[in-house]
């Protein structure tokens, strides 16, 4: 049954090479923790991806209830956390996952750094990785404002004030982020848009580039 559907599609689209490219490859001994326990450091990239997927999924569920305006934002977060079944789990996953993904990404970066895997021919993948790093920090910064409690409000205020002290472009950055002169209604809608559309879009594009490069080049060899 599945086989014949697969064959039907494969006849038309020739998808076998496609999924082979994705999945059909060998895992060499030096990155396999089953052979050398210390190879667990090679798992951090995969774990980062795992948590990233959790972030995207839990975030999608959060937007079903979250209302990005100054009057309702706080109440909607409170409501979805305490009144919606599993709301506590969904918000908890997104909140703590945001920290966990940073930790995992950090460990992954250190693994790549200390195994010298960023060296030729993998320079571009390292640069893409650093861009992912910045995108992640951007997601953390913009997401922090969304619950619209005092902690969110004042951290964002200080953050944007710091950005505003950059010469020449500081004022532009600040008015781009504020959408006005203060942290207010415009800031919240902006941060929401950046947090759920712009940065995740960029993140997915960068992850695609990251993974394509890994498949092209293979994992770096043993030390």
């Amino acid at each position, binding site marked *: 049954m599945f086989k014949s559907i697969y064959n039907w599609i494969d006849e038309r689209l020739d998808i076998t090479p496609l999924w082979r490219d994705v999945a059909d490859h060998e895992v060499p001994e030096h990155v396999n923790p089953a052979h050398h326990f210390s190879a667990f450091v090679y798992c951090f990239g995969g774990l980062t991806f795992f948590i990233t997927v959790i972030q995207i999924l839990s975030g999608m569920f959060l937007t079903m209830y979250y209302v990005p305006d100054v009057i309702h934002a706080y109440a909607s977060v409170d409501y979805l956390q305490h009144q919606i079944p599993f709301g506590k789990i969904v918000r908890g996953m997104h909140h703590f996952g945001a920290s966990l993904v940073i930790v995992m990404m950090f460990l992954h970066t250190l693994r790549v750094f200390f195994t*010298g895997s960023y060296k030729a021919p993998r320079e571009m993948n390292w640069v893409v990785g650093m861009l992912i790093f910045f995108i992640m920090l951007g997601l*953390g910064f913009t997401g922090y404002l969304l619950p619209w409690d005092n902690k969110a409000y004042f951290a964002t205020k200080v953050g944007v004030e710091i950005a505003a002290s950059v010469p020449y472009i500081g004022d532009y950055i600040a008015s781009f982020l504020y959408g006005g002169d203060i942290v207010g209604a415009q800031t919240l809608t902006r941060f929401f848009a950046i947090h759920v559309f712009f940065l995740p879009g960029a993140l997915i594009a960068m992850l695609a580039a990251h993974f394509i490069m890994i498949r092209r080049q293979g994992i770096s060899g043993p030390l």
Partner: protein
Amino acid sequence: MAHGHKSDEKVVYVGDSRVKKSGRIDGTPPDYTAFPGKSEAFIPNFLLKEWMVGCVVLVGFLVWVMAEAAPLGYPADPTNASFIPMPDWYFLFLYQFLKYPYVSQDYVLLGTIGVPAIMFGALLLAPFLDTGKERRFYRRPIASSLMLLSLAAVTYLTVVSWSHYQDQLEEKGIVPEHHERAEKVREALERGEERPSFLKTDATPALIEADDPAFSIVEAQCISCHAADLGGGAGPSLIGIGNRLSSEEIAEIITHGTEGGMPAFEGMISDEEITQISEWLAKQTQS
């Protein structure tokens, strides 16, 4: 011009389309025969083990999430001047760094773009700065020690920032808002009350005994300055005035006015009316 499949042609198109035929014709990915040791197929062997690890991680994560609720403080209040701003923990090192002399105030340039730009720039361009062939970290003393040094610095700054924050809280006797809030919710629920919302309602609290005849005098004389709901306009809000002033004091203000702009009503309305209004206003208390 038709595209024949001549072998000397540089670009070969697939069928009648404009899609270039891929160079990797059989679609076989590079293999790992170059690596020593036992390699293992990604699917299904390795992936299965990976998923098992993934499940363990997920269960651990869920336990954490269920044990601890994501924090939420009080609703943002831009006029709150005493709130100590704190970014999320992974920004603390930068936040702390910017507090040091030579990277703040007159030198803030150095702090906001100088040092961070160099550090993050170097990290971004690491492959082009460290171009040697050697990959083992102990054979790359400069790169490795720079990274270890940065790690130590970031850890140090984060710890200092956090303990400084804790000290501040203790000094000022502040309980972080999300703890205080959680505690209040717990107490309210224990008393069997509704879950408190902590939102400031914009609606002005209802007046007490609004059907009292005194209110019609107030409506005639006072609302041009104190607003129809007595929420304040040119004159201050009179809601909750009974908490601060007695009926005698209010009568005194109404009779003689104040220097701050409250007109004297002596002779404009009768003393009896003033007493009536004062007694009614004195009842306007708020919890």
